């Protein structure tokens, strides 16, 4: 069992009871135990993984994904919890939408779903959403994600207003004006292919702005999907100045750079874009040294025809829930990231950032959300494996190493590849 939150890394038996962790027994098995026993010899038993940045497209875009298919993909990828963004239709800016998402997830889902509600009504960047009502309905944080609050005064007011309540604002840090309608990282590959570039500065300027505003007014800030070196570098600087800022990065930038755009590869189109090798190295370093707090995949399902078109108009984003864990596990190869650090990034970190009580740990009394990771198994991510409604992944056909052997959510087995262990009805 690896549980960085309680600083444990031991072999033994984890006892789950009534949807909670009863206790962990180191060493020998208990003499007598009435209940299902799952053997995970040679594997890791870790707190259920949490992806704090997904798009479930429900309500409104259910042909791309819905709460059922999205959480099924999550469970298969080892995730027991996901936090979903507000760009649904209607936008998640009202308690009705929050309750709809949570209710459907509870009744039909395969993982816990924590809604991240909008910062501004309709994601329009004009008026603040009703934060307390949304939080009371169950929203765990606030974000305008893909349509970041452009007006710095409004962003300041939002940070300032929510500060006494302790809500965190998650920022897709991008200066849209500076991004200038770009479609790929501004660098050699985009120049050669004649694709309008998104300069790194579009992200860096926005991160700096958000941090400086947070320094001015306080509050909790989180930077989503950091993609640039200078972006990563801003975090220690801000923390040194007393800013409560956390940051996430995406697993798809572990193995790839903007070079993946070659041939106008539609599944290399995302926002923030895949960036240069310097950026990739800085992100790996940030993952390693603790600057980055979480890995989140920005799961963005799209039907085929919005990807099967000219590059400039193709939709941004890729599905990621089923490949996040194996791509993250690839970080172990260099020996610079240890398993406990990885579990922190994929579970304890997001739980801390979002303030999810009972999640991200296997301490006694925690929720019985458990992922059993087989770090060695080799498998291929073939089209038949995709559980999302959408298949927009650049990793189709990739040979992967490591995956979730079983996913247990609230004490129920929601996914299993283990012999003799089948998912609970």
């Amino acid at each position, binding site marked *: 069992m690896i549980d960085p939150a309680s600083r444990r890394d031991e072999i033994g038996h984890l006892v789950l009871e009534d949807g909670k962790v009863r206790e962990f027994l180191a060493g020998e098995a208990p003499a007598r135990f009435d209940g299902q026993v799952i053997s995970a010899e040679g594997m890791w038993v870790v707190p259920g993984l949490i992806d704090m940045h997904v798009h479930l497209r429900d309500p409104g875009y259910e042909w791309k994904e819905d709460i059922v298919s999205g959480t099924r993909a999550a469970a298969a990828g080892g995730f027991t919890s996901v936090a979903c963004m507000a760009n649904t239709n209607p936008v998640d800016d009202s308690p009705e939408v929050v309750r709809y998402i949570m209710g459907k997830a509870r009744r039909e889902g395969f993982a816990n779903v924590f809604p991240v509600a909008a910062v501004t009504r309709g994601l329009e960047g004009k008026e603040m959403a009703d934060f307390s009502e949304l939080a009371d309905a169950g929203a765990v944080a606030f974000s305008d994600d893909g349509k970041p609050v452009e007006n710095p005064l409004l962003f300041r007011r939002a940070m300032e207003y929510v500060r006494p309540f302790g809500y965190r604002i998650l920022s897709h840090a991008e200066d849209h004006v500076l991004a200038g309608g770009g479609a790929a990282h501004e660098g050699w590959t985009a120049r050669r292919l004649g694709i309008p570039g998104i300069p790194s500065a579009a992200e860096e300027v926005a991160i700096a702005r958000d941090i400086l505003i947070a320094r001015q007014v306080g509050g909790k800030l989180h930077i989503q999907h950091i993609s640039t070196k200078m972006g990563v570098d801003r975090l220690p600087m801000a923390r040194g100045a007393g800013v409560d800022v956390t940051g996430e990065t995406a697993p798809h930038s572990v193995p790839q750079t903007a070079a993946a755009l070659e041939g106008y590869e539609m599944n290399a189109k995302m926002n923030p874009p895949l960036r240069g090798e310097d950026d990739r190295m800085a992100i790996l370093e940030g993952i390693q040294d603790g600057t980055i707090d979480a890995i989140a995949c920005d799961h963005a399902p799209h039907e085929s025809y919005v990807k099967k*078109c000219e590059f400039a108009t193709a939709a941004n984003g890729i599905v990621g829930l089923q490949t996040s864990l194996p791509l993250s596990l690839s970080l172990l190869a260099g020996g610079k990231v240890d398993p406990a650090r990885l579990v922190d990034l994929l579970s304890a970190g997001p739980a801390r950032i979002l303030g999810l009580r009972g999640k991200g740990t296997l301490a006694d009394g925690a929720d019985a959300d458990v992922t059993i990771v087989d770090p060695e198994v080799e498998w291929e991510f073939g089209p038949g494996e995709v559980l999302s409604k959408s298949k927009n992944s650049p990793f189709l056909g990739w040979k992967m190493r490591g995956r979730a052997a079983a996913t247990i959510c609230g004490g129920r087995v929601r996914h299993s590849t283990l012999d003799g262990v089948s998912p609970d009805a």
Partner: protein
Amino acid sequence: MEWHRRHVLGLSDFRPEEMEFVIDTARSMEEVLTRDIKKVPALRGKTVVNLFFEASTRTRTSFEMAGKRLSADVVNFSSGTSSVAKGETLLDTARNIEAMKPNILVVRHSASGAALFLSRHVSCSIINAGDGANEHPSQGLLDLYTILKAKGKIAGLKIAIVGDILHSRVVRSDLHSLGRMGAKLWLCGPAPLVPREMERTGAVVTGDIREAVRGADVIIMLRIQLERQKTAYFPSLREYSRMYGLNREVFSLAKDDAVIMHPGPINRGVELSDELADCERSLVLRQVESGVAVRMALLYLLAGGSHVAH
């Protein structure tokens, strides 16, 4: 040499001998154009569709003329008169045209990569007639051919390309055609329109037109694409013309036998002074002539036509 290509999407993967082969073919096409009856039956029974999703008069006319000189049936499709305005996807439009069994689609589109994308999804041949800021291979070849005719060689020439490098598909094809044949290329323009990354092509990048033109054998002036400038890349046309326009005085720094080219249409008095546009060293109209011959060659080679009747 054997011709194996099914599409001409760009010059990025063209070997020098392939380019020479196209030019040789264009030479025999040009001979046809000197005859009284400027038409051969090489592509009789073949259909060429000009699929133009972006406004263009000269390129479309040039391809149309090329097709007709070879006796192909040429059909023009432009987005203004099509279902694209009704929201049809690029792929659906192309597949609908393809279902009518053309042999060659000549595609012009505002998005980089559009021709490559279509080539993956349709079965007929595709000629890229310009895709966004990516490539314009027939222009790259006609520029090569025009310079060869004027100078007799490419290797060792200093060729300056001045203007909006950032958005230019002509540059991205010329870099391959002229660069691969051994020219020394200089790229010049206002810094926001000349990405520093372009140095990785092997070209010299400069913001000083005098430096670019000094001792040059060929000067290619690019159109300032006013319609593309959503945000200003430079202060004004007046300032542009003063800093990056080619006039008598700047042109005097070039070699005595230097020539001027322009892919057209020219903004007279902006990138090129009125007198230079019409001077005896301007090859602008020769480029247009070469264009028909090169496009005849491409259509001919892609249609697998037998041989040109002499």
